[in-house]
């Protein structure tokens, strides 16, 4: 019988939640990396027992952890007793250095700061990890300040794909409230050279050459805070979702507005429809029904909690515009949590399961595509990310 493993990153460590295909009885393991922020964990589609985790701390910096046994044990892949040819310790797994070399790099310029002045790029942390769809040793990392890195050796060492940071619009990028983070990486399963990323608050970008060069894909986005409504960059994209069976169609939760693109991001149109508020962070798509979309509406950019204290997932079965509230099993009074951008996921079981985590420490599951919900856990630290693996 199939089973699922939910990977949960929190403010104070990581957890794994496992259940069989009924998704009724859950086994909770953790905390791993206790006391550290775990921004994201994700397993390799090629080898699900290989899981990468971003462990980070304002005190001690960035650590990349890797498990090769499904999350039971972890190692920092570049942290062993190994030395460079010069005899120096490696510690490469944690080393994210912007590539400014003449050969493959881009100059380390400045970006826009909160007060409108220019500010130098500074590495802070890894927000998102995206393992390759075809190679368990290959993995991408989205970082703050915004840049894209990749590793071809299982996380031992990391190199920047500097064409993104070197895009000429860089000086117009600005940090969102959470920092200038590259938080979304979407890989096209039908075209290995096509990569989508999103940055707060620069917008969405696409590469069609494996990450060497990038183009902004923000046409149709409208951001009231921008003086130029048709600005090429500067939009606060919160998350992008793609159903791998239909990679040309993208859905986006922007700061405000839920958006849809039917041409790989070249053009976007709003599909917020009857949502009670179209502010939010998380968005995902049913595994088997590419027109079934899930969002977790949040009251506003000033009040990051559900409208009227009612935690609701809204589902559209028409690819947007027509939405219905999914409330069964979710608190409908006095609930003031947030659902962060990487904290929603879907499994691929026959009856698609939907999962999301909250800043109140709850992780909810719906084993019936959103109709009913129940908490898997109620009292974890604030949840930063949720991913799910469907296992044989």
């Amino acid at each position: 019988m199939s089973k699922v493993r939910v990977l949960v990153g929190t403010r104070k460590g990581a957890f794994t939640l496992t259940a069989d295909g009924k998704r009724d009885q859950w086994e909770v393991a953790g905390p791993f990396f206790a006391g550290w922020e775990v921004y994201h964990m994700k397993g390799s589609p090629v080898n699900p027992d290989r899981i990468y985790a971003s462990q980070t701390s304002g005190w001690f910096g960035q650590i990349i952890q890797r498990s090769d046994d499904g999350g039971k044990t972890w190692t920092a892949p570049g942290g062993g007793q190994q030395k460079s040819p010069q005899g120096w310790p490696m510690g490469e797994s944690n080393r994210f250095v912007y590539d400014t070399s003449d050969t493959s790099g881009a100059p380390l310029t400045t970006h826009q700061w909160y007060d409108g002045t220019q500010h130098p790029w500074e590495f802070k942390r890894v927000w998102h990890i995206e393992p390759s769809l075809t190679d368990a040793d290959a993995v991408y990392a989205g970082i703050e300040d915004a840049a894209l890195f990749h590793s071809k050796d299982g996380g031992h060492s990391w190199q920047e794909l500097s064409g993104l940071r070197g895009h000429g619009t860089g000086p117009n990028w600005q940090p969102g409230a959470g920092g200038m983070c590259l938080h979304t990486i979407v890989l096209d399963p039908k075209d290995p050279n096509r990569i989508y990323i999103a940055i707060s608050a620069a917008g969405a970008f696409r590469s069609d050459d494996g990450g060497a060069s990038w183009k902004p894909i923000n046409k149709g986005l409208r951001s009231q805070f921008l003086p130029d409504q048709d600005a090429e960059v500067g939009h606060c994209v919160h998350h992008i979702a793609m159903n791998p069976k239909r990679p040309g169609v993208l859905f986006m939760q922007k700061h405000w507005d839920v958006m849809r693109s039917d041409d790989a991001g070249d053009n976007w149109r709003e599909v917020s429809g009857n949502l009670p508020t179209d502010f939010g962070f998380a968005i995902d798509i049913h595994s088997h029904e590419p027109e079934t979309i899930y969002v977790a509406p949040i009251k506003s950019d000033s009040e990051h909690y559900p409208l009227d204290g009612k935690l609701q997932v809204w589902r559209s079965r028409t690819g947007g515009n027509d939405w219905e509230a999914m409330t069964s099993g979710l608190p409908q009074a006095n609930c003031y949590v947030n659902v962060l951008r990487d904290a929603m996921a879907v499994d691929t079981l026959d009856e698609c399961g939907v999962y999301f985590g909250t800043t109140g420490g709850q992780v909810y599951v719906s084993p019936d595509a959103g109709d009913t919900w129940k908490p898997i856990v109620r009292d974890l630290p604030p949840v930063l990310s949720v991913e799910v693996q469907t296992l044989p």
Partner: protein
Amino acid sequence: MIRVELPFHLRTLAQVSGEVQVEVAAPVTLRRVLDALEEQYPVLCGTIRDHDTKQRRPFLRFFAHQQDISHDSPDDPLPGEVASGKEPLLVIGAIAGGSR
């Protein structure tokens, strides 16, 4: 042998308990101790000082023989009590950022 006392999270990361000991040739300086520490425990690279600039991370402090040496030159000789192994070099995580 030079004794080094690490903060809890770095002991966990390096998978050690209690103090660690590193061998450092004279003259014993902070830079040499940290070089030896990172060589012995490569996972600590970048956690105490920047990977490349070797600057101290902002929320860490170094104490030797009851003195805060965080702002001293990393090439200054450490106090004899630390250089002789009588007392440990303390790497301390600042008490800050209580909101999380």
